């Protein structure tokens, strides 16, 4: 299980490749890996988005993400979990979040990956501020997850 906050852009596919290579003991054990990457769209609510600033609560964010992963590990038979989340200034098209779950069978990986994302969005203390052509605005809620 690895949880990381990043203040610079990251490549989710490179991270996944490196993570699997580092977890050599996992190869051959997992039959399923479900992942989700959330990225910054250049359009939201009809407005062009020029960028975003992601604020978080240092300490609490990591703690809450750890709790979310521990809860998932108690609910599903998971072999590994990876969460990477950006903080700071983000450009359109850049990844914001990567969540991955490895398990023996696909049901567990799919369910855990989606549940991790929903828990992250509803509980982890992050706040998004969008930069528009004519100013800034705080994002005031999430789109429906189910």
């Amino acid at each position, binding site marked *: 299980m690895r949880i990381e906050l990043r203040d610079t852009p990251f490549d989710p596919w490179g991270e996944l490749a490196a993570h699997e290579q580092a977890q050599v003991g996992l190869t051959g054990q997992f039959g399923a890996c479900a992942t989700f990457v959330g990225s910054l769209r250049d359009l939201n609510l009809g407005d062009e988005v020029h960028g975003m600033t992601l*604020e978080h*609560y240092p300490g609490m964010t990591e703690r*809450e993400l750890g709790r979310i992963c521990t809860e998932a590990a108690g609910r599903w038979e998971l072999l590994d979990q990876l969460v990477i989340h950006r903080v700071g200034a983000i450009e359109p098209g850049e990844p914001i979040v990567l969540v991955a779950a490895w398990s023996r069978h696909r049901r567990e990986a799919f369910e855990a990956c989606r549940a991790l994302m929903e828990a992250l*969005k509803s*509980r982890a203390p992050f*706040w998004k501020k969008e930069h528009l052509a004519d100013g800034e605005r705080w994002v*005031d809620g*999430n789109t429906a997850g189910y």
Partner: protein
Amino acid sequence: MSVTVKFFASLKEQLGCDGATVEIGEVATAADIWLQATGGKPMPPNILVSINLEYCDRNCPVKPGDEVGFFPPVTGG
């Protein structure tokens, strides 16, 4: 004894303040801390509260040395 208060995101901007140190008596709730830190402003109904990095109810008791966070609904991911 003192309590550390932190404000985040839109709340921080509205209050024009990212935190404070407030003095409390022996018995205080998070809501009491809010009133003391904001000079008596009413707490908006959607504000989330944490004590020592864990979510809690606004009526939870606060001890000296605690860190109390106040913030709007989260929007990560």
